[in-house]
């Protein structure tokens, strides 16, 4: 341990109208350390970071940085002191090249003009330091989110940052990409940088962090060495409740004689995904496991008609259906919560009430408007049922936290009273408590006779909830296991190698 911290925040207090967002919080980061900052949504993580970066102005407390007291008033000021932030959303310009995104605003000049050669050379060097040999002269939007994320980190660290804040950098990355990011983080740590790492993924905290600070409801729970704490203790500390209460979830019970709800035969679209053969019983929860891009989402889209199938058949409740577009699916009592909540799910400027009524309205057709009163009743019912944290139904959905947004989307589809609900990564980017609640809701629906297809990258939750798990790789089904008989190990080996236990494609 070095004798003084690189960054020391002491007694931070901030009050927003009506709420004490942070109450006497202490937080410190050493040079050459990865320090995880944890807590449920609303615990005050982002508020604390925003105090540090000058977005919010704290009411009380001191910040010591490199032994000197600082009080940044804007992100730019914090930035020029050596505190860089990489946000969850990519804050770069998609139209500029990779190289330019790293250097814009501080381009090396030669004779009063921008020295493009130097920019491209240095950018290439920087990216290859992160083990990314890419063409830096291509526009940023040519590259995947993971690479864009790396570019924003490259930009942040190239400015001699002493403190790097990573705000949920991994939520849109797959496992390989996360490993890549971790390697970079470790290298930066070895160079003496202090890294603040905010994430919802518990495994990642244990994989990469040295210490962790846990916040709950705006107060400090404590700072711990990662090696001194178990996952279970961590979760208990984060939510302040006994873990068993939350995780005491039982798999849905499926009656062996229950009627078949969904059956597809050779469903597919050439060039996309083909030969999807599925059979699901009423009230069954079917998990889709596999890596990002393995065809999980595409299969779901095929069933729902978001990508129309050109071959094969689809039967719902024993009746042959032809689903050419999502509206057909909605009419056949199917529901689909897409993966990218922000892009395909919520309509940020509409209220919670309007967001909930959307799918039902679409199914009824636009000539049969849902009355305002009915909408109010619907909204109130689901806000209560799903315990959506909001003062009232007229709040804009965009203002809610991720977990609550997800619940609204869930409510939207529950309102249509579907027979089959497809949930694509419903728990991504939301905190442990909300996750458990979404899972509980899913299982309750199964017990009420709804069939659910559950897509997730987190093996743990998929194993905990599913009756059966379909494993996909490269657009094909490579295995199928029963939920009760499955461990993470077997699932992982099927994802990696496939074709085990007599699974058929």
């Amino acid at each position, binding site marked *: 341990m070095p004798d003084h911290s690189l960054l020391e925040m002491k007694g931070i207090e901030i009050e927003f109208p009506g709420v004490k967002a942070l109450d006497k919080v202490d937080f410190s980061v050493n040079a050459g350390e990865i320090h995880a900052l944890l807590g449920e949504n609303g615990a005050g993580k982002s508020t604390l970071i925003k105090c540090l970066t000058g977005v919010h102005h704290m009411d009380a407390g001191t910040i010591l940085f490199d032994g000197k007291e600082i009080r940044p008033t804007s992100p730019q000021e914090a930035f020029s002191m050596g505190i860089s932030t990489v946000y969850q959303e990519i804050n770069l310009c998609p139209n500029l090249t990779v190289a330019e995104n790293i250097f814009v605003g501080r381009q090396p000049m030669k004779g009063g003009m921008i020295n493009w050669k130097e920019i491209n050379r240095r950018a290439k060097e920087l990216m290859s330091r992160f083990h990314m040999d890419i063409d830096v002269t291509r526009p940023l939007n040519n590259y*995947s989110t993971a690479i864009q994320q790396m570019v924003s980190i490259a930009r942040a660290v190239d400015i001699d940052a002493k403190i790097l804040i990573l705000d949920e950098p991994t939520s849109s990355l797959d496992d390989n990409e996360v490993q890549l990011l971790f390697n970079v983080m470790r290298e930066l740590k070895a160079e003496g940088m202090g890294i603040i790492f905010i994430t919802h993924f518990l495994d990642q905290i244990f994989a990469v962090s040295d210490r962790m600070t846990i916040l709950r409801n705006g107060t400090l729970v404590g700072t711990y060495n990662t090696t001194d704490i178990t996952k279970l203790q961590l979760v208990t500390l984060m939510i302040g409740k006994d873990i068993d209460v939350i995780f005491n979830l039982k798999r849905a019970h499926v009656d062996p004689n229950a009627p078949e709800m969904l059956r597809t035969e050779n469903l597919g679209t050439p060039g996309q995904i083909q030969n999807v053969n599925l059979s699901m019983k009423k009230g069954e929860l079917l998990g889709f496991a596999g890596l990002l891009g393995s065809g999980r989402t595409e299969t779901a889209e095929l069933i729902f008609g978001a990508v129309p199938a050109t071959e094969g058949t689809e039967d719902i409740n024993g009746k042959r259906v032809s689903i050419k577009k999502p509206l057909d699916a909605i009419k056949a009592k199917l529901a689909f919560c897409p993966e990218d909540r922000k892009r395909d799910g919520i309509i940020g400027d509409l209220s919670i009430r309007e967001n909930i009524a959307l799918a039902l309205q679409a199914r009824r057709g636009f000539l049969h408007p849902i009355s305002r009163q009915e909408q109010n009743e619907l909204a109130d019912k689901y806000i209560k049922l799903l315990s959506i944290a909001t003062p009232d139904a007229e709040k804009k959905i965009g203002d809610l936290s991720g977990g609550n947004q997800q619940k609204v989307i869930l409510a939207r589809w529950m309102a249509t009273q579907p027979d089959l609900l497809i949930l694509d990564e419903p728990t991504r980017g939301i905190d442990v408590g909300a996750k458990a609640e979404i899972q509980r809701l899913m299982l309750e629906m199964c017990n009420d006779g709804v069939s659910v297809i559950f897509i997730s990258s987190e093996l743990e939750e998929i194993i905990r909830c599913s009756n059966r798990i379909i494993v996909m790789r490269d657009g094909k089904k490579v295995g199928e296991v029963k939920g009760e008989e499955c461990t993470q190990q077997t699932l992982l080996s099927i994802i990696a190698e496939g074709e085990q236990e007599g699974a058929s494609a």
Partner: protein
Amino acid sequence: MPERIPEQRQSFASRFLKPQYVMVYATVGIFILIYIYGAVRFGSIGFTTLRTFINMFKDNAYYGISAVGMTLVLITGGIDLSVASVACLTGMIVAYGTTVLGFHPAVCMLVALIVGVGLGVLQGAAIHYLNVPPFITTLAGNFLARGVCSLISRESISVSHPMIDALAGWKWYFKKYVDGEWVKIKPIAFINVNLFVFIVMIIIGTIILQKTKFGRNIYAIGGNEQSAKLMGLPVAKTKIMVYGFNGLCSVIAGFAYLLEVKSGWNLALNGGELEAITCAVIGGTLLTGGVGYMVGTLFGVLLKSVIPALITFNGNLLSWWGKIATGGLLALFIVIQRIVVTTSERNKSKKKEAT
């Protein structure tokens, strides 16, 4: 530390076949196609001469000058509808100041410059600080400037001053070296002040966009203004400067128009802002911001001028066909823009799945 990878030699093709250049290629390609058509069809009656080519620029030079500033505005994701009125106002100020009040045109020019750039800066400030959409802000600026024109005079004021005459009459002839002396080529082709200024403005615009921080900030703002702010770029200053620069271009364009017609008229250049926008858009500047090149705008001006030239050479068509053809071209380019944008998005998502 990972070993350093050797400097990769980029192939000639990969350096030039970048997705961001596609729109410019489309513009240049279509211009060349139309030009070849003209050359085949009307080559025998002089379509391919240097004179015809130069005239294509010359007749539209003032729109071209305005399109330079407009390109910058469009790249930030904005729009400026006040340019034609400001250009007209410039003409009015110089004509009224010189003919009626008896000032030297240079003094009047300075006044027009202050008015034009000042209005641009004001508009930029309103757009940034008051968050008024550029469309509305500059529409107001358009009415304001046009109103002031009519306030100055509702009649055409002709200008006659040695300096203006000298500038309007200046010509640089293309010559060739024959038998030990320089002779003008036949048919005679020359560059006038307007064309010269247009070319200079294109060069200045290129340097601004490609070689200065100011120019790159323009692209960054057009790409994602929020990100630009978070990256610590001077968003406010850049936006205000862009509209100020566009005001400057409008003033220069107005002066160029004055040299052409030698009079100020309160209804001159009516609708000219749309001509400038058309040149920039045909030249591959995206109306959604973030993408655009000066070379594209240059070819946009050429492409827009080659059509009336063809109609003149044909001789049987009404000049209104020019408008129709321009409209068609504009529609075509907007469709191409959409296709380029959507395919690049699709490629991206495909790539994402592949990784």
